[in-house]
């Protein structure tokens, strides 16, 4: 049976990540970066790799990683979500799954020490089972085409590019590769459009292996993103609770008004449920459970909406101050709304679930 709890070592991992983020990535620092278009904080990334070694958690030990697994990766993502930290951790985890899926864990060695971040070059909105190969291959091999709205690619060193005949790797600084940052809804995770113009590439997998490595990686993205969303939602809940306890109106803490209390109680229920769902997804992913596609779709059908609700309630119950640029709530709102589309919307995942659990759509008229 799936273990939905946090083990003691996972709690310890959480504590150390939280402490590091509190020291080096307070929200004021995150906010100060988002007016630019290259918001990634690679100094923070280096600390996550150097101080805590968490960038290689899912990298096998023989390749220099911690040999832990995706349950631990999910715990780190919770904390990163809680801090809206601008680091390419999610993208690296997805790429890790892709490389492990085609037996090329050897390419992950540098990641374990925080270098040469790998990223799967698909639009951030890609959902499992929707192949989109806008990149064409020619002899060399060389790649040509444009992939729009890729997350975590700006600071990446190694691009994993799915194409019709397999999965390719391209150096991010190879000739013919251009990354154009996108003005993103979530400025803490700036997307970019990547143009390949006869860019030299290496093929690392072909046929069904490549196909399922990519699909499984996107499923992993859906499953892991849920933990980040839980972190976002938990921050929004905690911060709102703290605020309404000290904000007085009509001579009382706002948090003593029953409608406010009940709204936050309902939100707590949702966050509690989202946590169980996210743990299930992480555990399935970590143990190779055949229920992983279902768990990933369930996660994105549920947790994304919870994070958005949490951020919306956070803004609302902060009143005017929550609507300002100078308050961090909007960073979470934008992260949450953006993440609700990433790796497929709730609606898309409900459709996938319909197939997985035999609840078919009506026949067309």
């Amino acid at each position: 049976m799936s273990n939905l709890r946090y083990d003691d070592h996972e709690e310890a991992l959480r504590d150390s990540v939280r402490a590091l983020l509190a020291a080096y990535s307070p929200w004021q620092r995150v906010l100060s970066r988002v007016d630019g278009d290259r918001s990634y904080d690679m100094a923070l990334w280096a600390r996550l790799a150097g101080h805590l070694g968490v960038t290689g958690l899912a990298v096998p030990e023989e390749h220099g990683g911690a040999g832990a697994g995706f349950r631990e990766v999910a715990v780190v993502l919770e904390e990163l979500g809680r801090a809206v930290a601008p680091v390419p951790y999610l993208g690296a985890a997805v790429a890790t799954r892709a490389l492990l899926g085609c037996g090329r864990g050897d390419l992950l060695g540098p990641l374990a020490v925080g270098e040469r971040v790998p990223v799967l070059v698909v639009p951030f909105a890609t959902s499992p089972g929707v192949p989109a190969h806008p990149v064409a291959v020619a002899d060399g091999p060389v790649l040509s085409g444009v992939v729009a709205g890729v997350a975590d690619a700006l600071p990446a060193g190694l691009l994993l590019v799915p194409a019709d005949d397999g999965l390719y790797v391209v150096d991010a600084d190879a000739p013919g590769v251009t990354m154009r940052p996108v003005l993103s809804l979530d400025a803490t995770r700036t997307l970019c459009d990547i143009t390949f113009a006869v860019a030299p590439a290496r093929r690392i997998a072909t046929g069904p292996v490549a196909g399922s490595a990519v699909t499984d990686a996107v499923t992993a993205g859906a499953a892991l993103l849920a933990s980040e969303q839980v972190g976002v939602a938990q921050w929004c809940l905690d911060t709102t609770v703290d605020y309404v306890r000290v904000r007085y109106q009509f001579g009382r803490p706002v948090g003593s008004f029953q409608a406010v209390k009940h709204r936050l109680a309902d939100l707590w229920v949702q966050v509690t449920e989202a946590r169980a769902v996210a743990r299930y997804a992480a555990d399935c992913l970590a143990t190779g459970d055949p229920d992983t596609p279902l768990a990933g779709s369930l996660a994105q059908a549920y947790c994304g909406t919870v994070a958005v609700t949490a951020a919306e309630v956070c803004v609302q119950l902060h009143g005017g101050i929550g609507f300002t640029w100078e308050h961090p709530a909007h960073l979470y709102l934008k992260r949450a709304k953006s993440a609700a589309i990433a790796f497929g919307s709730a609606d898309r995942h409900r459709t996938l679930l319909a197939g997985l659990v035999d609840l078919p759509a009506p026949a067309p008229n």
Partner: protein
Amino acid sequence: MSDDAAAEMLRGRVAAFLDRHDPAGDRTAFLRARFDAGLAWVHHPVGLGGLDAPRRLQPLVDAEFARVGAPDNRPRRNSIGLGMAAPTLLRHGTPTQRARWLRPLWTGEEIWCQLFSEPGAGSDLAGLTTRAVRDGTDWIVDGQKVWTSMAHRARWAILLTRTDPVAPKHRGITFFVCDMTAPGVQVRPLRQLTGEAEFNEVFLTDVRLPDSLRVGAVGDGWRVARTTLMHERVAIGGRPLPREGGMIGRLAQTWRDRPELRSAGLHHEVLQSWVRAEAARLTALRLRQQLLAGDPGPESSAVKLSFAALAQRISGIEVELLGGEGLRHDDWTMHRPEEPDLLGRTATYRYLRARGNSIEGGTSEILRTIIAERVLGLPAEPRVDR
């Protein structure tokens, strides 16, 4: 003793017990013997049905007995006795009381009910007005209780009374065990909007209870009742369900079996409900894992809230999905079911019965307030009552 050692000890005890007692023999004798062997509630003290073993090992013992087809104590017939009265008596009863009541309670020979709610004291349970007045070594009880399931079959009741009308409201309450056969106890069925009557009204008129039926100190009944109520919530949250267990399974099956009823809009509703039901199920599972690890957490309130909301929503969708068939009901006559037949009857019955889920056992409003104050630490409202 480590868990593993304790488990081995318990398995040994069950095996030895089964050597001496035939599971196919007399049901009551078998259950009494099981109680006496300490295999009823393993976490209870020796002599009170237990062996002072860790509570989380009880499922193991139950499984061992089930494996050989031994009779159980029909727990659903006496859910209030087992779920609420027993833990309360264990914690607050005198040795004499525990010795008298726990064994026939566990074996199912004596059914229990709960006389807490009153017409004027529902959510505000501590506002109860049923009086108990001392008369020598007895107490005379007068008042009206409501929403009492099993009262018409119960031998005993746990009863809250007001013994001090001038004390602050939580401090004037005393807890009794009420003899349901005593003169002056009148039980009337309370018909629900489904047509049937699971519950009762209980009228208490000059009911004479000896002081030996008092549990806890005079005026300390609210504290005793908190033990009862805590177990009520845990009991509701604790059942593990398989995927598509409960109402969502009925809806999903109707969807699968009846393609002609499907529409795109209802597909959306069915899928959303499926997702929410599965999220609630995983939450209950996580709660259970935490309980078994000795780390209960406050998730049980979440589980009850979601359970009620989901049951209401899912059954509502099912009625809509059935369309013209959803306008037809199966039975409006007055019955006295042991428990609601949620999955056996029509969707209309499920829809109507589910309205009670957010009222019984603590309204959803009260649960939200409990979560807000006890889990989130939000401030209480200004109190105008005592």
